[in-house]
């Protein structure tokens, strides 16, 4: 027997649901970007300046980059469930994406610090500055110029990766739109709107980042 579910059209009452998706996407991005940047800054510095740390952190960096995010979400979710501490999907997302962003940021920080010419570090230390003074007044400001455009790129990538947290039940924007598609069968319309949202956030930021990169080239 053919069983056909009736499709209802898109209605204005769907808007709150979509906005919930937007909101969830944004807070997840914000939280993961904040923690991820902090983690990444520390790890990047450690990997650059502390040889022992490189060995210890290598497995973490390696694994995070070689296992799909979907699987990382599922595993973290499952681990916490097994340990008897069920986590909200938002926190599963924050944990995994922060660690992921931490790895990406640490690559940038490491490269940025490494790009500072050694003569500048020598000159600073020779003037009597301590290691931390040199880092704070010379290496870090210079490294930031190269790190910043790349960092913006990772934030953009993060925004897009939030879409995957839906596998553990987080209702971010893409998931919300999928639900709407199932109900209304207006795939193209819903997707166009969703795509526009992501595009509207990511594209201007990436343009800004490219412009920044060009100004830093001139110094």
């Amino acid at each position, binding site marked *: 027997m053919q069983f056909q579910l009736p499709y209802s059209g898109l209605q204005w009452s769907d808007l709150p649901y979509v906005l919930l998706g937007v909101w969830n996407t944004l807070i997840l991005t914000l939280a993961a970007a904040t923690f991820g940047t902090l983690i990444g800054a520390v790890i990047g510095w450690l990997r650059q300046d502390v040889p022992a740390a490189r060995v210890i952190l290598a497995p973490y960096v390696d*694994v995070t*980059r*070689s*296992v*799909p*995010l*979907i*699987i*990382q979400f*599922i*595993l973290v979710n*499952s*681990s916490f469930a*097994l*340990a*008897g501490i069920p986590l909200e999907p938002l926190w599963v997302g924050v944990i995994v994406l922060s660690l992921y962003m931490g790895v990406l940021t640490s690559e940038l920080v490491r490269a940025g610090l490494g790009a500072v010419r050694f003569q500048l570090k020598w000159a600073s230390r020779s003037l009597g500055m301590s290691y931390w003074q040199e880092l704070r007044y010379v290496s870090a400001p210079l490294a930031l110029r190269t790190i910043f455009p790349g960092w913006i790129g990772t934030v*953009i990538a993060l925004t*897009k*990766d*939030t*879409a*995957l947290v*839906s*596998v553990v039940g987080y209702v971010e924007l*893409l998931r919300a*739109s*999928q639900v709407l*598609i199932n109900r209304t*069968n*207006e*795939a*193209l319309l819903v*997707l166009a709107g*969703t*795509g526009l949202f*992501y*595009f509207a956030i*990511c*594209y201007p930021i*990436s343009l800004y980042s490219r412009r920044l990169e060009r100004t830093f080239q001139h110094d």
Partner: protein
Amino acid sequence: MFNYTFYWSIVWEKFPELLQGARVTLEVTILSMIFGTALALPLSLWRRAEEGVGHAFATGWVELARNTPALFQVYMVYFGLGSLHIHLPSYFAMVAALTFNNAGYLAETFRGGLNSVPPQQLSAARSLGMSAFSAYAYVVFPQVFQVVFFPYVNQLNWALLNSSLGMIIGLRELTGATQAAQSESFRTFEFFIVAACIYYLMAKAIETLAQLASWRLFGR
């Protein structure tokens, strides 16, 4: 805390299904990279042209690929085309979506590679009497190749990992196969840890091959 006994033998039983999934993963990855590379070549040339229809088209493609989630692109191919009554099986939809994405990113990579070769190289080659074809083949291309090699391998790695999105549209690549395999016993953790290891090995294999190729080709 851990009132849980790990039950590995069930994973072992279903292991062939996982391997079959891994095979699908590799197929989808490699196919999407081949098609993506083929498309990226003209796209990158159009991008280098300052204006024209080709340039606009290529720019649209590249910016769309880079500024929307990969999953969105998968949905567009699977559901979006579906509402135009073009129902692609998930295998083809996945390859198509990944191809679209690969082409976009690789176009930019190739463009960067072409830009990195100083125009004097071409002039010097032509001044030595080489034809345009020879100049490009023997002087420009090898340099471009060296510059884009590692970004290219990165993209390959990305494609491998993002093939896992296939699970969401019902494709039995590795993640999808794992999801199906664990749905009876609900041993989520055990199954997915094994899947994670398989991905890790595949990613490492690619990295090692790339490193070997790099030593052979570039000496470093």
